[in-house]
């Protein structure tokens, strides 16, 4: 098989994968302390794909949530808002990415919630508290 024709597609897939890698992983790769490996995915469960309509509705919901979070003045209000929205882990990841926050492979739903709340509300409260 001639790999040259597949190379651009492979590089795009690698770039897409690396885009979501943690800073620590990227550092480790750059410094030669880690390597990329190819692993089979035969044993993985097939992922149910989301329809375009579902995705649009979900995006609008997440946009709205991100805007509302920025207006709130306490972490508790933010947590209540996220609880009421009943976001799946996938949606929390998308909300975090929408807010330009890092999403690590090891993050569970609670860690994602905390990161979203700290970025959208906590940072403002911290700043106000220190400035007095």
């Amino acid at each position, binding site marked *: 098989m001639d790999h040259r024709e597949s190379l651009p597609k492979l590089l795009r897939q690698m*770039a897409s994968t690396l*885009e979501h890698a943690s800073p620590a992983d*990227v550092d480790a790769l750059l410094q030669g302390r880690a390597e990329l490996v190819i692993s089979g995915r035969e044993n993985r469960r097939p992922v149910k794909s989301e329809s375009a309509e579902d995705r649009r509705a979900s995006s609008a919901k997440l946009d709205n949530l991100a805007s509302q979070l920025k207006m709130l003045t306490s972490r508790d209000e933010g947590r209540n808002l996220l609880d009421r929205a009943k976001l799946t882990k996938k949606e929390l990841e998308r909300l975090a990415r929408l807010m*330009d*926050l*890092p999403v690590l492979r090891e993050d569970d739903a609670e860690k994602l919630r905390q990161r979203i709340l700290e970025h959208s509300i906590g*940072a403002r409260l911290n*700043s106000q508290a*220190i*400035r007095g």
Partner: protein
Amino acid sequence: MTANLAAQLAWDGRRILLVDLDAQASLTFSFIAPDTWEKDFAESKTIKSWFESFDATPQISLASLVNEPPRVLNALKGRGDLHIIYSHLGLINVDLKLATKLGGANISQAKKNFINIHRRLADGLAGDIKNHPSQKYDLVMIDCPPNFNIVTKTAIIASDYILVPARPDYLSTLGIDYLLRSVRGLIKDYNDFAEVKDGQKIEKIAPKMLGVVFTMIQEYGGQPISAQRPFMSQVKNRPDISVFPEYIKRNDTLFADAPQYGVPVVLHGYNSGSHQSVVDGLEAVSKKFQKALGW
């Protein structure tokens, strides 16, 4: 950052004086080796000696402490000037001595002492440096430690502008708020007290916050990595502080040992892509800085 920004400005033909007010003396050791400092400067030719000479006769002149680091002089090839007044590892003791001189028998005396102590550097620069015929500087850059001691306060009071270098991480961005709070408190105290010195009005101070410059930026895909971007955007979203869109990139290969050779990275003659990328970032920060100064 201070060494590289000053070197870039000097490369652009400016006359720059650096004053290192950090007891860790990192800026000092970016230009001279510690053994040279100990042999030729430590005893009587640092900013510590100047602060201490207020209690001695004769008083040392700031201008007499100015040094032109020889390796930078060579690298600049006559384009501009970069001079420096070195710091001292014992500078923290000066702070303790200055603290003992604050206070007074009554409020009026305490206010007068406050102004006298805190104006030392401002008066020294205005007298010894500004009026010195052979040292007409375009800019004096005072490098401060990351705390708000009395020596740092003398720098704030002597300054027209404040530039805040910061790493985009949680604790560093909290440090920006701490600095803003401390500067605001100092300006208020100083301006309140300035009314009463010897019954005369002392000019009030209003140093302008030029903004935050993010440093140690790790890039991936042509932008800061995702772990740093949220902290950058949080600071940008704060209403009363501006952030330079340009930033200084992290490159350990270039920066790790550069101070050892006494020449800031921006003056190195390398041609590699990664070096050029770092220098481009420094140049962009320098341009923005000059624009903010109205140059």
